[in-house]
Structure formats: structure tokens, C-alpha cells
């Protein structure tokens, strides 16, 4: 098992073995992270730039932590201070930073396909840190890592992905990856947050929250991406959302015993998830965050090795 590519752009192109390779590698880094000196020098002397054209504090900190624990020089770039606001093109911005001998870019951008666009036009390695509505592969890998850690397997598990699926790159990356690992994925969303032609994802589609949760092992709640709706008809109210599409303690009981409850954060408390569930015994939200660092260390380490 290995991964031989320059970039990690999405899970859609990953094989089952490649996914497992990332997860196995992440396990080693998780062990490292549990020691008091959390440091390796695998990326010593290498430069990793977090090129965030779209704001995200938690993903950026997770990647920054990962790069630094591997001994890389991690540099943060965010669009707020960027020249793209002055009219410079995306590729010019990237090529300028590449000229400073950058080895790896972690790219987050509000446009789908932009990580692939950058990857095709630069020699540096690209990690897609979330592009538009397309993919967020490290989020899917950390979700899978957390599932394997707690359930010990993938094959035959039932996962419900609930919420704003249309605008979720997390959902897309998870669906592509989970199918390859033999996980059954069920989707549930308000109709305007469900992708048109959802059948392309080859998932079960539930009609009610109850149906969605029935007998699942993992409940993946998504955030309402109001900023990505592009002027779409907004949902009537948070109250109505929580009533028909939100997760509360009683609804959790419909799932299999000891379900894992995920949320990619940040949570709209009382809308997608009630606080009793968000902070309850089945919530794995903070485990996701912890595992995110290990997974990102694995990704950076593997791409760096591929650079030779």
C-alpha cells in the first residue's frame, strides 16, 4: 500500500488501499501526538504554506499544528491580507509564493476545482483544504480515522449524513470515501439543501429524521452553509430547522447503540444539534479535532516523501 501522487485533491480519486494507507500512517502520528514531546523532523527544512483564500480558523490551525509538529516552516497566508484583493490572479499569487521555494501548499478556496487548478499549474504539492462545494479530503480522512478507532471496522457500517448536503464539501468527500470502504451512506436534508440529482451519489435518501437515524452507527451532522447559498432561498427559520432536521437526545435513541455523533464545526447550537447532544456522551466532535492533526501530519508527510 502506498500513495504516489504529487497532490491530495480529493477522495473521489483515491482507492480503498490509498485511503487505508493514509489512515495507517495517521495512527503513527497520533501516537506521537500523545507523547509529551510531540515532534518529528520528517519535514525539517521544508516550507508549507497555508494558502487560505477563504477564512477558516480551525482548519488552518490544525494544518499549521500538523506542519510544525513535523518540523516544517509553516507559514500562513490569508486572503484578508492578500494581493488577490488588489486584482492579482490566483495563479500569480501562488507562483509568487512558489518562487520562495515552497514545497507544499494547503489550499482553501471558495471556488470548486480551484485546488485542482492550482495543482495543474504549479510544481509544489497541493493539499486541498476545502474547495468550494467540491471536496475536503482531510476532513473525510479524519472522520474515517475516528470511525475506525471507535468501531474497529468500516464494512457494513451505516452512516447518516444530515443537513446542508448540497453546499457541503465534507459530505462529498465522505460519500466518495465511504463507498470505497463498504460503508452504507444515508442522506437526509431539507429539499433545498439536497443536491439536485442526488442519485448520482448512490446513497439511500431518507424522508424524515426518524428514517435517517434508524439503525445507524454514525450520525454526521452538517453545518448550514448560509455563506455558500449564493442568494438562494434561505431556510424559513432556525426554529423550524431544529424541529424537522436537527438532532436532539430523543432522536439519537433511534440509532444503533453507542453511535458516533460528528459535526465538522463550527456548530450552530440549537439548530443542527442541541447542546445536550453536542456535549453528550456520544459526541465525537472533539475527537475529530484531535484526529485531524494526526491525519494532516500523515498527509503532509506522505506528500513530502513523494517529492523525493
Amino acid at each position: 500500500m502506498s500513495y504516489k501522487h504529487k497532490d491530495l485533491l480529493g477522495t473521489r480519486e483515491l482507492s480503498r488501499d490509498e485511503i487505508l494507507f493514509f489512515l495507517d500512517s495517521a495512527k503513527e502520528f497520533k501516537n506521537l501526538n500523545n507523547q509529551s514531546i510531540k515532534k518529528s523532523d520528517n519535514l525539517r527544512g521544508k516550507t508549507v504554506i497555508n494558502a487560505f483564500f477563504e477564512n477558516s480558523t480551525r482548519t488552518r490551525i490544525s494544518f499549521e499544528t500538523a506542519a510544525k509538529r513535523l518540523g516544517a516552516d509553516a507559514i500562513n497566508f490569508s486572503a484578508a491580507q492578500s494581493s488577490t484583493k488588489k486584482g492579482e490572479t490566483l495563479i500569480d499569487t501562488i507562483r509568487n509564493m512558489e518562487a520562495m521555494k515552497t514545497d507544499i501548499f494547503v489550499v482553501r478556496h471558495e471556488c470548486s476545482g480551484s485546488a485542482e487548478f492550482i495543482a495543474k499549474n504549479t510544481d509544489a504539492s497541493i493539499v486541498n483544504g476545502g474547495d468550494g462545494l467540491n471536496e475536503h479530503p482531510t476532513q473525510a480522512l479524519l472522520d474515517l480515522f475516528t470511525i475506525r478507532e471507535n468501531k474497529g471496522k468500516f464494512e457494513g457500517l451505516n452512516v447518516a449524513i444530515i443537513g446542508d448536503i448540497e453546499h457541503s464539501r465534507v459530505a462529498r468527500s465522505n460519500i466518495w470515501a465511504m463507498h470505497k470502504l463498504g460503508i452504507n451512506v444515508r442522506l437526509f436534508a431539507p429539499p433545498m439543501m439536497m443536491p439536485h440529482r442526488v442519485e448520482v451519489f448512490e446513497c439511500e435518501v431518507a424522508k424524515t429524521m426518524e428514517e435517517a437515524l434508524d439503525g445507524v452507527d454514525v450520525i454526521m451532522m452538517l453545518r448550514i452553509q448560509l455563506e455558500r447559498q449564493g442568494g438562494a432561498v434561505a431556510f424559513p427559520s432556525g426554529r423550524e430547522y431544529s424541529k424537522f432536521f436537527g438532532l436532539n437526545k430523543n432522536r439519537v435513541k433511534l440509532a444503533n447503540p453507542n453511535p458516533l455523533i460528528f459535526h465538522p464545526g463550527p456548530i450552530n447550537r440549537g439548530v443542527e444539534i442541541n447542546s445536550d447532544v453536542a456535549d453528550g456522551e456520544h459526541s465525537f466532535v472533539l475527537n475529530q479535532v484531535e484526529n485531524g492533526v494526526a491525519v494532516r501530519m500523515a498527509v503532509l508527510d506522505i506528500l513530502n516523501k513523494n517529492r523525493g
Partner: protein
Amino acid sequence: MKIFIKNATIVNSDKTIQSNILIDGENIAKITDEILEADEVIDATGKFVVPGLIDMHVHFRDPGYEYKDDINSGSEAAVAGGVTTALPMANTNPVNDNAVITRDMIAKAKARGLIDLLPIGAITKKLGGEGITEMGDMTQAGAVAFSDDGLPVSSSDVMRAALEYSNHFGSFVISHCEDCSMCRTGVMHEGKVSAILGLKGMPREKEEIMVSRDMLLAKLTGGHIHIAHVSSAWSLKMIEMAKKEGINVTCEATPHHFTFTDENLMSYDTNFKMSPPLREVSDKEAVRNALKSGLVDVIATDHAPHLDDEKFVEFDKAPFGIIGLQTLVPLSLKLVEEGVISLERMVELTSTNPARILKLNNKGRIKEGYLADIAIIDPNLEYIYDAKLNKSKSINSPLFGKKLKGAAVMTIKSGKIVWNFPNLLI
């Protein structure tokens, strides 16, 4: 000046014959089996001689965006594609919403002398969607139709007035059908591919809603509506119904909509980003069937130049549109080769019907007394469509750098040779 074309396979929309053509001055003087004296003799053995192509939908970006193309480069690209008459849309800067701009555009094209440029005037002032333009004045100045193209008229009442008023001056309205209240920042067709790619989709219904409105307004007014670049099966169904009901409607299809589908977008190539977007196989088939059945009246390119820098960006940020003048012949010939349409039907779609719709009484046929606007097409010529051939200032075509088959190897405009395929001795 006399030109004699011998051994010609003359293709008109109703029949194909083997004969010779004598051009005298601006006109076709004689179609004959005799060999006649001339200043220049062209042997067209193995070639199709067709009436000069009439492209009812181009963007020459002049005035205002001459870095993308201008009337000169647009004219050159046109004749290199066999097109001798072109209708540029009004979304220039300033907008072609008054007779002064219309006259300027025509004068500039005349000075270059390659094609007849027949401007399409704006429906509304500054394409603002509200007050309609001085259509009478503009018609006198040479505007042949009215359209706000990419900024469709949202107000049904304004569209009604446009249909009534243009009709009064013997003109008509071209509609880019799009209900913009459904835009939602869409960048491609809404379907399976957009779901996979996570790109915002534009449903077919966005187009179909506007087609149905415009059919009803044409029914109300009796005005002539021409539906631009039809891209969906249901749009065609409604146009078919309207035609059966006797509503005054014509429509066009573009080569890209009968050649490509949204599947081509899988690599986020911005050269496949266009409006209306490339749709699904079923829509492409519907367009091809409508070309075959006669439902579609015209093939038009929607030649939409954008500088490569503008397309070399994130997919969401790239402008809509591709160039098309120089790929019109190879893509249309491909329909013939694939048995979708006959060669005569191709001539009907690219020349005879546009001439009829535009009431150009001396164009659209190879006929004695008609204007000598002629394209000589080699259906078997294979070549790379690249910088050496490209006459547009822009290269935003998914076919750029690709191998194509079939081309206009010589174009004659009003009796003058205006294009010769490079390095080809005909």
C-alpha cells in the same frame, strides 16, 4: 474582375449539382457547363461550393472590449470560417443602443471590407431592461434585429413592447432565454455532473420558463421572436408547439450545444463554461434531432471571445462563452458525416434560412444574379486549429490545438477572394 470556379459541387439547400460558376463583379453571373474566360480560374474539384455562411449570433466586442476581438479581427475570423455575413450582439461598451453606434460599427466593417456586418441593436437602453431603444432610427441605420442577449429582459411588459415596436419597423427580437431570478450564481448545467463537481448549477427550467413566456408574448403581439442558442429538450418542445400554433418563432442552435455535454466539464476546463451551459446527452440529442427534423432554423456560433487570461482563473470566476467562427464548418460537417443532417440541410441552416429570416434577398443561395458570397469547403482537409490559423484575438475554445476535419479553404465576398487557407494551392 471575373472569377471562374470550375468543377464545382454546388450545394444549395434544395439540391446539389456539378457545374461551373462565373462571377462578374459583385454577383454570380452564370452557372454553366461551359468553360468561360475569366481573370482568375479556380478548380474546385472535390470541394463543396456553398453560399457564404451567415452567422446570426456573434460578439465582436467592438466598441469597448477590443482586446478580446474587434470588428477587424472578428471579420477575419469570420471569413476564415466561411462566414460572409455576421450579426454582432449589442453588449458592447458603449452599448449598441442608438443609431450612431450602429452606423459606426457598419462603417468600420465596410472599411475592412471582408464581410457584411449587420448589427443587432439593444432592446433596452444600456441593456438596462427598462426603456426600449429607438428601434426605428436604429433600423434605418442598419440594425437588423434587437436583443439584450446575455442580460435577458425580465419584464414581460418591456418584452411585449419590444416585440410590437420592432415588428412595426419590419424587424424582430432575438431572445436569450433565461429567468435570472433563478440564477443563484450558477456556473454550469444543474445535473449529475454539477452534483459531483460541487459547482453551482443552472437548471434547464431557467431557460424553458423564459422560452414559454416569450412564445406567449409572440402569440400576443404577432411579433417575430427568434430564440437564441436553444440548449434543452423542453425548450424545443415548446418551440415546436408554438410553431404548430402558427406563432411567429424561429430558433437557432450552436455547434457547441450539438457537439459537447456537461460531461466535458469534469476537469473544470473553463473553455467549456458557456451560457446557456452545456447540458446532458439527452438535451444534446434533442438539439441534434431538431436540427434534423427542421425544427431548428439556424446554426449560429455565439462566437464569444474572452482573453485567455480571463479564462485562466478559478472556474467560478471565468467568464461564459467560447469562440466559434472558425470551428463552425468542421463541427457542422461532423453532423453531416454522422448522418444527422444532409449537406443541403447544413447549407439551409447556415445560410439559406438566416438569409430568409433576415430578408436578404440576394444571399443564401448559389444562384445567377445573387451576390457572389461563396465559401469553398474541403470536407476532408485535416489540420490543427492553432495560433497559425486562428484569426480571433482570443483562443477560448476547447478545440484550440486539436485536430479538426473540414474547413472553408476559400471564401469569396461580393466577388472578391477574402480568405485562402494557408499553404493550400486550390
